[in-house]
């Protein structure tokens, strides 16, 4: 683990309690800070796409998009929009020098084969054992749609989840067991939330950093044992 403030310029690096809860962009900046230099990374649809805005120009990070591209550039605007060049969310994007294109079977082989260093996914719930639920609410009239979520969850060497720690109704999303249908079992390594960053380890859930709260306070709010 590198020290604070290697990338984003957002984190003070000062000791003592940090303000919180964090905004979406603050969480994205934290994730960006922790992605190693030169890593091959997939950013999931939704909240994780914000991470790209916080990667430093010299980060050397190569973004993978599962519809078949490495070294994807930022979103395309105006004349740069090309219908043949989109990201996994079907948003027009650009290519950076050194980009490559490949078909879907290769793209997911790259993922499943453990070649991606890291992926960042959104989450409905993460369990203490690192199970992830992020694809389906399981409600009777919900139409299931999985896309690449299951492939990403089990494929990348490190899986980071970005989510708010509580639902809008105040229900924790870091849970003893997922109640939503799971996307993958034991696949999450780290959870970035507005209140804290958690490592999911074989010994349990560890608070890595807390924002405007403490590990003890979090332990009182969550049903998950916190170390």
């Amino acid at each position, binding site marked *: 683990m590198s020290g604070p403030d290697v990338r984003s310029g957002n984190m003070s690096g000062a000791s003592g309690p940090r303000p919180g809860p964090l905004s979406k962009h603050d969480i994205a900046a934290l994730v960006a800070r922790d992605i190693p230099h030169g890593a091959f990374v997939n950013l999931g649809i939704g909240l994780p796409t914000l991470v790209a805005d916080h990667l430093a120009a010299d980060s050397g990070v190569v973004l993978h*998009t*599962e*519809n*078949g*591209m490495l070294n994807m550039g930022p979103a395309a605007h105006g004349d740069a929009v*090309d*219908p*043949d*060049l*989109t990201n996994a969310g*079907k948003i027009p994007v650009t*290519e950076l020098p050194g980009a490559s*294109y*490949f*078909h*879907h*079977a290769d*793209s*997911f*082989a790259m*993922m*499943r084969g453990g070649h991606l260093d890291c992926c960042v996914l959104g989450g409905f719930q993460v369990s203490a054992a690192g*199970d992830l639920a992020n694809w*389906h609410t399981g409600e009777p*009239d919900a*139409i*299931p*749609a*999985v*896309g*690449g*979520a*299951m*492939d990403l969850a*089990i*494929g990348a060497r490190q899986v980071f989840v970005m989510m708010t720690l509580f639902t809008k109704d105040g229900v924790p999303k870091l849970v003893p067991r997922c109640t939503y*249908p*799971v*996307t*993958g*079992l034991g696949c999450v390594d780290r959870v970035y939330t507005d209140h804290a960053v958690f490592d999911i380890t074989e010994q349990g859930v560890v608070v890595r950093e807390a924002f405007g709260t403490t590990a003890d306070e979090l332990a009182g709010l969550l049903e998950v044992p916190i170390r």
Partner: protein
Amino acid sequence: MPGNTASHQLSEPEPLASYCEGVTVQLCTDPDEAVAGIADGSTILVGGFGMAGMPVTLIDALIRQGAGDLTIVSNNAGNGDTGLAALLAKRRVRRVVCSFPRQSDSYVFDELYRSGSVELEVVPQGTLAERMRAAGAGIGAFYCPTGVGTLLAEGKETRVIDGRTYVLEYPIHGDVALIGAYRADRMGNLVYRKTARNFGPVMATAATLVVAQVREVVETGGIDPETVVTPSIYVDRVLEVADA
């Protein structure tokens, strides 16, 4: 290629051009010709990821052609009122196999699904691609780590290999593949453009009849062999649609 200037030679070699004519792909000038003969009950692999690589002209021709009771294998289940959504709206589709049916504008599919008028098999995106790859590569089935312990692996055979659990997945073979590509030569070699490549090269290997909609057809030899993505052996018919 040898030209007419060699006509004075005594033993003239077989002109390369005439040999090539024998293996020319079926170049279609009419979209209806490109989809002719597709039978009711067919499984059709449809390329594209969103609109990128979507063979819209071929899908429109399939709607006119009239085949029904179809199984459609594609990443999505149609958008708006055109393409796959229009095919669904005409009740030609019995079953959809896809990874991501639900989208902001997938209302045609949503309504058919909720009324029980269309069957749905949801497959993780990478598994969908790999099942077609397996079909094209002659693989009987494969053990895949994706989806283990989830709803999508329920009832499937599993096996632990080196301490990791895998799900047995079977190939998806198409009777027909309708794909979009960028350029074809007259033999049917294909190249794609940017992320419009997506499912095209995999689907081209996995169907009995492969039809490619391309933006331009060039002479045989007009594509650098080093850059061919889908070799001609996989391609049966090519339709040029310049403005697609």
